């Protein structure tokens, strides 16, 4: 501001100098005239000086007028000199016809254009960057894998929601600053904690599968650590990824269990067939009746084997999502008879009370008879299997205007509330020791549910542990 006060504009200086030198010239001229005329012609002197003086003033006025646009330019530039951050948008074009002014105006137009683009670019880049950052943040927060970024000491700098959830601290507002190893270790049993600690201390180990407790269902983590290096090649932060692989592990365990079960299921009838056929072949003195019995047994066991192979086939079809149904009009009483005939012997063998109650007038339904028989047989044979000897199994069939209900009720071991939601999951078998004693693939119900679904129906389950269960297969009438 001080500089501005002292500053005299280019025009002012130009006209000032013009006036100064002009006046000096006139004074010198007047003095010379007076000296030469021996101070006698004072009146004519006034005239002689008056004209140049007028010309001088006129010249000064002309300078000012001509350079007025320069003055404008100067003022604009001056503002930039005083404040370098002054906006280029405040620069004004010069309203004169002059090549220099035109040059300035062109320059100004270019500057304005450039600055406008710059502004757009900046705003765009800001928008894009803030959106990108937001997108990254959203992705980071919503990843199903838990992620924590830690400093060199293992203190958490940043973490996502899944990380907090997997550590069972969803309500914790911030884990920032906490030690990642401590946090992980407090969620697992001692042995697992030791493994995590040794992973933390050993840079070679980058991935670790941790079973939280001896019970698989309590959770299995896949823990991995990445050590990105900084520009000097030294490790700085560490990134910890936590993935819940419990379902995967459970499915693996169930699949393994299924293979064991399946081989057992295959070997049992095979063992019987081999034993009986070998006996028939090697023992000469068998009575006709004995022979007949043995052949029957072989036949029954072969049927059992065939049924199991069918079941396996159904399962593999279901696994591949390749089960299709062919609907035809089905007479319900025939369908029910077929199930009854095949299942009753099993109930009789266990001395169970096997009741069958069917509403008097059942409608014809559109269904795939074989698949529906298989689905219902599964429910009935499950009821028989999971009901102790001398228990009770009741099959009831009812219908109304819109649907048919097949209800299979038993007085069996029942299903615990924890197991109930898991039921129907492929390969699922309860940890209940009583269930473990009974041969089963853990796929029958899943198959029945799939068949119900393909018919547009459902299976609902009601059960109480040690009291019994009721499975209801509902099929809509079209």
């Amino acid at each position, binding site marked *: 501001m001080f500089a501005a006060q002292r500053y005299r504009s280019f025009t002012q200086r130009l006209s000032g100098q013009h006036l100064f030198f002009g006046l000096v010239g006139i004074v010198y001229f007047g003095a010379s005239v007076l000296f030469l005329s021996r101070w006698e012609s004072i009146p004519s002197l006034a005239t002689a000086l008056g004209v140049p003086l007028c010309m001088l003033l006129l010249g000064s006025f002309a300078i000012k007028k001509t350079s007025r646009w320069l003055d404008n330019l100067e003022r604009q530039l001056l503002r930039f000199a005083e404040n370098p951050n002054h906006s280029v948008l405040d620069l004004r074009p010069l309203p004169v016809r002059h090549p220099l002014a035109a040059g300035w105006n062109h320059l100004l137009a270019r500057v304005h254009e450039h600055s406008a683009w710059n502004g757009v670019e900046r705003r765009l880049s800001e928008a894009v960057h803030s959106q990108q950052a937001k997108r990254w943040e959203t992705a980071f927060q919503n990843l199903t894998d838990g992620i924590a970024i830690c400093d060199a000491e293992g203190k958490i700098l940043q973490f996502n929601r899944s990380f907090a959830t997997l550590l069972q601290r969803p309500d914790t507002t911030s884990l920032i600053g906490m030690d990642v190893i401590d946090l992980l270790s407090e969620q697992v049993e001692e042995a697992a904690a030791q493994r995590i600690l040794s992973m933390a201390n050993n840079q070679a180990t980058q991935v670790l599968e941790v079973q939280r407790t001896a019970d698989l269902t309590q959770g299995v983590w896949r823990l991995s650590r990445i050590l990105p290096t900084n520009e000097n090649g030294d490790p700085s932060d560490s990134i910890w990824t936590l993935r819940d692989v419990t379902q995967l592990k459970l499915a693996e365990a169930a699949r393994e269990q299924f293979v064991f079960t399946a081989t057992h299921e295959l070997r049992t009838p095979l*063992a019987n067939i081999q034993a009986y056929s070998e006996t028939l072949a090697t023992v000469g003195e068998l009575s006709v009746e004995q022979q007949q019995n043995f052949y029957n047994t072989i036949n029954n066991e072969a049927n059992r084997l065939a049924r199991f192979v069918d079941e396996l086939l159904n399962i593999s079809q279901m696994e591949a999502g390749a089960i299709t149904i062919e609907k035809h009009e089905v007479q319900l009483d025939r369908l029910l008879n077929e199930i009854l005939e095949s299942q009753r012997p099993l109930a009789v063998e266990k001395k169970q009370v096997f009741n069958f109650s069917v509403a008097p007038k059942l409608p014809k339904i559109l269904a795939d008879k074989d698949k529906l028989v298989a689905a219902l047989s599964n429910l009935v044979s499950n009821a028989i299997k999971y009901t102790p000897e001398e228990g009770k199994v009741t099959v009831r069939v009812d219908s109304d205007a819109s649907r048919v209900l097949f209800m299979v009720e038993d007085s069996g071991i029942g299903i615990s509330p924890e197991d109930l939601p898991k039921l129907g999951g492929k390969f699922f078998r309860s940890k209940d020791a009583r269930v473990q004693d009974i041969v089963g693939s853990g796929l029958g119900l899943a198959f029945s549910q799939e068949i119900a679904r393909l018919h547009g129906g459902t299976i609902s389950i009601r059960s109480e542990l040690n009291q019994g269960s009721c499975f209801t297969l509902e099929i809509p009438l079209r």
Partner: protein
Amino acid sequence: MITSKKILVAEDNTVLGDVIRFNLQRAGFDVTIARDGEKASDLLSEQPFDILVTDYEMPGLNGEQLCEYARKSLQLSALKIVMCTAKGYELNREQLKAKFNIEWFLHKPFSMRDLTKLLESLELKSFAPTTTPLQVQ
């Protein structure tokens, strides 16, 4: 006169149990069938047997628990044990064999002739079987 070997067969599969009984009786053994582990354990505690042929998977008391009961609770160290199973590699046979001094594992399906021959070949000893041989350093 040589008394026939007394054999207890613990097998929950009645169909297989019947044919085992048929074949072993024909071979001259004195056969008793128990339909589950608990019945087998009761029979073992009530009367003397020379050989126990047991299934591994049975409701209630399984084959392993039955062996444990026979060897530990009843102290039947002279009893010969043959285990048959439909289980695969999930069963640690060597460990079981050593733990309960099991003579033989039969894998289902197995031949009746093999079973008969095996039982005939088992030498009966009235004294307790030797423990695991000494390790030579």
